[in-house]
């Protein structure tokens, strides 16, 4: 009996001393296996009395159970240690750069165009396009700029032949839209924006580009007013540049609108107090607009006694320059990746 207890104590000690799962298993086999000293000791049971045998059996079971239990406990302990060691060995530097998919970008002019489209589509506008190689008739005549009109000087033009040119503005798309309606069932209400490329015979520098992008807007119905134009432009400015920005309309002149206005936006840099960015005025010119000139309506098949509407023309580079604080228009056309990369997150 004492032998059993001694073996039991010895076993528990061995198990406790095991440093890894193999040593533990070896100890388990040597104390609980067929060749274990406990099994050997149990052979003595044959010579014992019934009572002694029962007692011996009970103790040997207790010893075996306590060894088995100890083995389980030690196993869990060693496994936990092993996992800890494994985790320890698997440490990484999470500050290293990510394995990112290549990040592309949309061009800022596309981003601004998308912004405008989203805003106006939400108000039920359609998007119309027109040709960049345009006729003199659409670009000038239908826009109330007959040959010899002094305002043609405002728009130095790339002519292709006497009747064909690179369009100088997106306004001719107005005429395309109206004449399309006339050709397809007659005058109907119109609510449209027309983004696109335009061209003028300007030398390229920090503020001029022979190619630039505009977005025309045209709304025609029987009761459209200048107040509607003002409300629409104010909404545009607040959505595009923030709720704090204000607009100001200044009388101006475009042959295709009457009355015509230049629209200024309060300077975002100084909040309207006046700074170098707004040349001290607190205002920055952003677009031209007005009520569609009755002559334009008439030439495009809309009776000016019945129909009236507003039109506006936004320079997309101008909007992008103000929105992103870009000061050189050439940046848009150089396509330097160090410039383009900055627009990766924008849509």
């Amino acid at each position, binding site marked *: 009996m004492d032998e059993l207890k001694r073996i039991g104590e010895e076993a528990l000690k061995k198990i406790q001393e095991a440093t890894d799962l193999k040593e533990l298993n070896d100890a388990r086999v040597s104390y609980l296996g067929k060749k274990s000293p406990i099994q050997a000791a149990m052979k003595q049971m044959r010579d014992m009395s019934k009572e002694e045998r029962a007692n011996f059996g009970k103790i040997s079971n207790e010893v075996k159970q306590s060894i088995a239990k100890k083995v389980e406990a030690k196993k869990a302990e060693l496994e936990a240690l092993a996992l800890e060691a494994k985790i320890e060995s698997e440490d990484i530097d999470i500050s290293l750069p990510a394995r990112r998919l290549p990040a592309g970008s949309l*061009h800022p002019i596309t981003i601004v165009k998308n912004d405008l489209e989203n805003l106006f589509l939400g108000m039920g506008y359609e998007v119309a396009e027109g040709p960049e190689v345009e006729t003199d008739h659409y670009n000038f005549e239908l826009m109330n700029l007959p040959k010899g009109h002094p305002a043609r000087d405002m728009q130095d033009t790339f002519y292709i032949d006497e009747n064909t040119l690179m369009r100088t503005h997106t306004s001719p798309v107005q005429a395309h839209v109206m004449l399309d309606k006339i050709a397809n069932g007659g005058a109907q209400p119109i609510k449209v924006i027309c983004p696109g490329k335009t061209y003028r015979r300007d030398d390229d520098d920090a503020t001029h580009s022979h190619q630039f992008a505009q977005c025309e807007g045209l709304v025609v119905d029987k009761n459209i*007013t*200048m107040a509607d134009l003002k409300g629409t432009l104010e909404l545009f400015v607040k959505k595009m540049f923030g709720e704090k920005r204000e607009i100001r309309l200044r009388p101006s002149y475009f042959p295709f609108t009457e009355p015509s206005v230049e629209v200024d936006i309060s300077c975002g840099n100084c909040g309207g107090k006046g700074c170098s960015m707004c040349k001290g005025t607190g205002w920055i010119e952003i677009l031209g607009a007005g009520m569609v000139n009755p002559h334009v309506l008439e030439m495009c098949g809309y009776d000016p006694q019945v129909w009236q509407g507003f039109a506006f023309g936004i320079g997309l580079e101008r909007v992008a320059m103000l929105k992103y604080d870009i000061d050189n228009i050439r940046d848009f056309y150089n396509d330097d990746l160090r410039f*383009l990369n900055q627009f990766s997150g924008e849509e």
Partner: protein
Amino acid sequence: MLASYKLLNQYVKVDDQNPEELAEKITRIGHEVEGHHPLALGTKLVVGYVKECIDHPDSDHLHICQVEVAPGEVTQIVCGAPNVAAGEKVIVALPGCELHAGKISAGKIRGAESNGMICSIAELIEDQRLLREEDKAGIHVLDQDAPVGVEALSYLGLDDFIMDIGLTPNRSDCMAMTSLAHEVAALLKRDVTYPEVKKYDEKESEIQVNVETDLCPFFGAKLVKGVSTHESPAWLRNFLLASGIKPINNIVDISNFVMVETGQPIHMYDYDKLTKKAFTIKTGFDTEETMLDGEKYKIEPSDIIVSTDDGIGCIAGVMGAESTKIDDTTTNIIIEAATFDGATLRATARRLNLLTDASQHYIKGAIDTANSLHVLDRCADLLVQLADAKEVYKTVHTPLHIEPKVVETSVARTNGLLGTSFTAQEIADVFERLHFSYESDGENFKVTIPTYRNDISMDADLTEEVARLYGYDNLPNTLPFMSMTEGILSDKQAKEKMIRKTLADLGLHEVLTYTLTSAETVNDFNLFHDNDETVTLMSPLNEERAVVRKSLLPALLTTIKYNLDHSNKDVNIFELANTYSRQDKEISNLAIACTGRYVDIPWLNESKQVDFYLVKGFVETLFDKLGISNKRYTFTKVERDNKDFHPGRSGYIRFGKKIVGVIGEVHPAKAKAYGVDEVYVAELNLTEVLNLRTSALKFTAIPTYPEVSRDLALVVDATTPAQDILTTILKSAKILVDAKIFDVYEGEHVEEGKKSIAISLRFQDPTKTLDEESITKAMHAILERVKKEFNAVIRQ
């Protein structure tokens, strides 16, 4: 145009207005004041008296002057001007005075104390072009009665303020100060004062006027005798300086001043130089003539000519001839005030490069023809007052009948266009402020438009007058009230937007390049415009931007070159833009160009160079997204002698026989010409691609029976396109659902000129579990087929 504040004050009272605030108000009614500045700059300028002037002991040109700068206060000033002398009254800039050239401070000049500067006119006025030689040569000597110590600029009459106004083309009438005065008067609710013009007892002259062209609606000539030429009075010179015009002498100055005041260009002829006292206005001359600037000019038959003595008297509205010009000895003058066709004049002035002040007035339409006779009287009166004219003759002129326009409007029209609720009284008030006369019944207006307002012809024009004088700030803000509309992009627009977004998401950068390119490169990579005629500009700015492009790739290669030169080595870009050829051909192109690496994560040792298959992947992804199955298009190699694309590494994308795009490596020789290295590109004809029928997604049920895989390695000719083999295999057995290439090999163990292609096959029957027999049968069919079509054998 430059507008003098003091001159404006002659016609409407503004001297109680702060000039800068006035400029802002003028801007708000539609005449943008783009800049404003004082005529002469300088805050501490006084009239001084040179009491003593001695040579500087340490200089060969400096003088040391004792100058009285205020009664009883004498200070020492060193002066370098050759004409400084004791006893002169001069302009003194005291220490602290800021001139356009810099700030004056007290100091020592070559050891002598100097407390200021004695000034020339050139030091006060910045625009040196307006100055006479004597203004620049030395200090300005004042009249002896100039009071010592008074502010010098106001003493000189140079205390003026100039506004630089950017007039809109419809309001060129405001080039006349009287017309601008009406604007300011309406703004400030004031009256306009016209200068008084004295009438003379006029005799009949023998001048004859004969107009033989429609391009001259009015011509008036007035003879004035006995003038003498000398310097103009200071007030006249100062007004001209403030208007940006160089004073010359009293005669020239008067003609310029009358133009500034009335907008009507004046030309003067020397009466005594004309043999026949007759003017004929006509076109049709084809000659050469020396004009009054001494230069010879070529005259074309289309030019309007004022002909005298059967020759050229004047190129109408542009410049007079040398032979008839007035000079210092002229005593008898014929004054011309006429109206000429602006468009014709523009062509002439541009051709001769003579866009003079006068011609600009005609070109821009600043002329108020109805006022012409008055202008001639004003001119004659000034010649009497300022040039001692002795006799004034009656004006000889063509008939002048100009009825003022009457434009109708109503309260309802005005409010209907503006979205306002102005009363009849408020509208009438605007017309009164503008000095328009009108009749009204309380709703409708009949407004008589002054002849100088040539911009007003319809009710919308009158509505603008109401809006701009009340101010657009007072307009309500509303949104259009219309029937509901859908507000969606067209199919084409939505697809183009998707393409941009997809390519950006795939890691490409969208670029924006110029539509105009050089004639030299316009046919490079041109695939979709065939031999169609190039769209060519009539007068390009330069050879680089002379024609409209037919392909986007030249610009993308140029963009790559630009980036390589700026140390951006991995350039993966795309552009979507229109290209054009004559006959109204507009094609929407999409181009992709990639060079360098696509993936680059150095610390993970992961780097992927761009190649053909990358770009092909971009294109196929787009086709997938557009709902165009890869069964519908094929790739075929470009021609062996293609000069744009690498013949071994480039192919056309075809739908049937039609080429809708190309993918490949830029031909190495072409790449070299563009200064780039290995570049892989694609260009698609989006107009064609977006017109293709797109298939809606069709769902197939997930199969319930297991699939069986088999691998197959075939040896074929190295030139056989793998896709052709796959297409054939897929057609060979019904139960074959997919075939994928997993290895391609050329080299050892494969016969020269052959390649091995390893293909993984997937078999499946939707109705039952496949048995070995049907698979063997299918494999057999596949092998038969590829053997027949490609002479393919199983790799041993």
